[in-house]
């Protein structure tokens, strides 16, 4: 299990690095799906099978399908790849990489003081998660439902304005 954890962690990191450096949006999306699947394997080795299943179904399934829909709707061609090549000069990576590395080193230094290990021997079963979700966190579940409703209404509103957009522009 330990070897599986390290292998899938490396896969996740490499795939994520590929996501942020790709020029073609669809290629980046496929690497992102690989990264999320690797994260699901990490969850499984850490003794969280329910969350691993949710990661595959909701993240790698539903959310990535939304991204694919939008990329297909935008109908991006080869010219966007050339545009990305113009935007992504090597110099643009220096500042963000430096800042990100500093933050990462700080986080790892802080974390390395803590002791303990994740065995993954004790699996937290889905029923435990469900009981905790609907007893201790009941208010948060209700708030999450309101957040989803707000997201639905917001996306509908923005999409509707998009639909009436060409009708306003066509006469002019």
């Amino acid at each position, binding site marked *: 299990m330990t070897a599986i954890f390290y292998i899938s962690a490396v896969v996740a990191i490499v795939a*994520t690095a590929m996501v942020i450096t790709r020029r073609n*949006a669809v290629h980046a999306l496929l690497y992102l799906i690989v990264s999320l699947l690797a994260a699901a394997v990490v969850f499984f080795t850490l003794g969280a099978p329910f969350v691993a299943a949710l990661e595959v179904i909701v993240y790698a399934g539903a959310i990535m399908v939304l991204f694919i*829909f939008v990329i297909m709707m935008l109908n991006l061609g080869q010219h966007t790849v050339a545009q990305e090549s113009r935007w992504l000069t090597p110099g643009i990576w220096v500042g963000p990489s430096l800042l990100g590395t500093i933050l990462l080193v700080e986080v790892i230094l802080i974390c390395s003081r803590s002791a303990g290990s994740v065995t993954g021997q004790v699996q*937290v079963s889905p029923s435990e998660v469900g009981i*905790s*979700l609907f007893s201790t966190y009941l208010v948060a579940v209700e708030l999450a439902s309101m957040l989803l409703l707000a997201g639905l209404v917001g996306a509908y509103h923005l999409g509707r304005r998009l639909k009436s957009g060409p009708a306003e522009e066509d006469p002019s």
Partner: protein
Amino acid sequence: MTSVPFEHALALAGVLFALGLVGVLARRNIIFMLMSIEIMLNAAGVAFVVAGSMWEKPDGQVLFIFILTMAAAEVSVGLALVLSLYHRFKTLDADAASTMKG
């Protein structure tokens, strides 16, 4: 069966989060910025699950479910905004929408 040190699992979350942060800072294409935000949210979820797995409590997984919910709501609104931006400016450049003119 040997176990994974806690700091290694947290370091994975930290590396993923830093990669997402670099992506948001470096890219100009707004779809890539949204993908990087997804990477950062997923990294936060990894940290929660690792902590919940260390103390063998379900709370970490519950919080991951909330992060998942938030990511779904965020990505639906964000992609609607991407479509709206592309429709108005005919480009995915985040710098195109730099003025607040209504």
